[in-house]
């Protein structure tokens, strides 16, 4: 063995000269008081911490997580970013997120691998074509690139797809959204964590919140498994367990926790550039940068606080997937997983102020949370810093249900649920 190699071995073992730089400092001890405590160290919570520190000068922040950094739905989504929603409120909101994504690698000084691929929402029925036209018109009005195209154009742009009539549900057309993109989900969390920590934010993993302390209708702190800490303001940014955490503050939410399953195939050479979604067939697929086919479907048929995988899911997914992409019959499933999704009645999030003073909520992210990571971080930071609901978040307030002022986005959900 060349002796030169020994030099590196001993150096890194004894001095750590060559050890990779940590993405963020470990914060060993909890302080007794913070200006802001954020429950949940996923993409949304970390992004809120980052924007509080960089846009609002609030740096005395603790981000707490019961598990490890970004181990929840930040790690479990299928990384699709798009703005082709159905309601003007939804389109404006997700459009701002896409705009933020485009400069995020520079801003966070980490490659989040944001890649615009083009996004198809396939239509196999007249009803789906109608929804596609509706979405295209709303999108164009709001300045988002979207158009309805026929099967020939689908085939021209995405030659791999099977547009033949010899299937159960032939493709009648598609809503084509050229800016549709994928990004590296873990890098988002690392980037926000790293930059937030650089500005003084503390990140405490393995720190579960057991109680939210409320005095005279205002949140004053949290009780954790590592002791009680006081907080000027508390933001809950958890997914899946939103109802459980909100319940600690005495709040009931319009949320049902339902698993969403996904899987990837073994990696193959690049064959599918676009992101392809079919609401009618309950499937979506894209090919990751390392060649895996990333696939998902509808949420499970019933609520569950579990991330187990089922054979039923894969059978129903593949039945339709093989019609769209017959070559997939050659591929093996490599990994499978699930996330616990906060499903709301109108398929829109629940964000902003709550009836409890100084207690803020970022929840209801169902199957649409990853793409909103930057905008929800930015706007929730504004909300927490100012104590006012930002205009962009007004449609998504918790109290919309009391006035039947729902933001119906089911027609733009990735797949029918």
């Amino acid at each position, binding site marked *: 063995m060349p002796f030169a190699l020994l030099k590196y071995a001993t150096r890194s073992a004894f001095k750590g000269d060559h050890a990779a730089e940590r993405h963020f400092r470990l914060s060993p001890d909890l302080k007794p008081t913070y200006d802001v405590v954020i429950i949940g160290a996923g993409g949304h919570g970390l992004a809120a911490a980052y924007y509080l520190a960089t846009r609002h000068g609030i740096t005395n922040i603790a981000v707490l997580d019961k598990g490890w950094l970004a181990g929840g739905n930040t790690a479990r989504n299928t990384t699709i970013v798009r703005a082709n929603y159905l309601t003007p409120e939804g389109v404006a909101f997700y459009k701002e997120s896409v705009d933020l994504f485009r400069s995020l690698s520079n801003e966070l000084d980490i490659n989040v691998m944001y890649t615009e691929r083009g996004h198809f929402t396939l239509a196999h029925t007249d009803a789906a074509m109608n929804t596609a036209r509706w979405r295209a018109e709303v999108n164009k009005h709001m300045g988002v690139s979207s158009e309805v195209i026929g099967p020939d154009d689908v085939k021209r742009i995405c030659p791999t797809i099977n547009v033949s009539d010899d299937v159960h549900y032939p493709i009648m057309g598609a809503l084509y959204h050229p800016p549709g993109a994928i990004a590296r989900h873990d890098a988002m969390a690392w980037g926000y964590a790293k930059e937030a920590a650089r500005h003084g934010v503390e990140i405490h993993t393995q720190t579960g919140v057991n109680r939210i302390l409320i005095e005279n209708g205002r949140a004053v702190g949290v009780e954790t498994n590592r002791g009680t800490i006081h907080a000027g303001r508390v933001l809950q940014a958890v997914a899946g367990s939103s109802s459980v955490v909100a319940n600690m503050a005495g709040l009931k939410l319009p949320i*049902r926790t339902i698993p969403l399953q996904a899987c990837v195939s073994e990696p193959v050479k690049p064959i599918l550039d676009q992101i392809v979604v079919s609401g009618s067939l309950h499937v979506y697929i894209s090919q990751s940068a390392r060649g895996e086919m990333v696939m998902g479907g509808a949420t499970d048929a019933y609520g569950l606080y579990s991330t187990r995988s*089922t054979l*039923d899911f894969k059978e129903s997914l593949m039945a339709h997937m093989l019609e769209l992409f017959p070559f997939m019959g050659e591929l093996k499933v490599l990994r499978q997983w699930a996330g616990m999704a906060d499903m709301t009645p109108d398929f829109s999030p629940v964000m902003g102020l709550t009836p409890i003073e100084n207690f803020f909520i970022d929840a209801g992210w169902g199957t649409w949370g990853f793409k909103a990571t930057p905008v929800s971080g930015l706007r929730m930071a504004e909300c927490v810093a100012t104590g006012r609901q930002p205009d962009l978040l007004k449609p998504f307030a918790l109290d919309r249900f*009391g006035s039947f002022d729902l933001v119906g986005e089911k027609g733009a959900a990735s797949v029918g649920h």
Partner: protein
Amino acid sequence: MKIMICPVNGPRNIAEFAWGGEVKPDVDPVTCTDQDWTDHLFLEANIAGIVTEWWLHTPTNTWFIARRNTLTDEILETMTLDAYYTREGAISA
């Protein structure tokens, strides 16, 4: 294949059933406040643990009650509406 026991039709594939959500206490739409009514419509206890829920056996259109553990995905018990209301001692019109 996961099996659920319909209290009328016996053990069947879970794919034959539809989830109806948690059993909520009824509110009287005549006397309740608007807030009570929208809370009843939209808010969910969404419990992580043992829940009591509505379920439907779709081929026979049979609604019944199930007790389930939402942490372990176990179906603990299923019962007809009669059995449920008898046990609860609460019959709502």
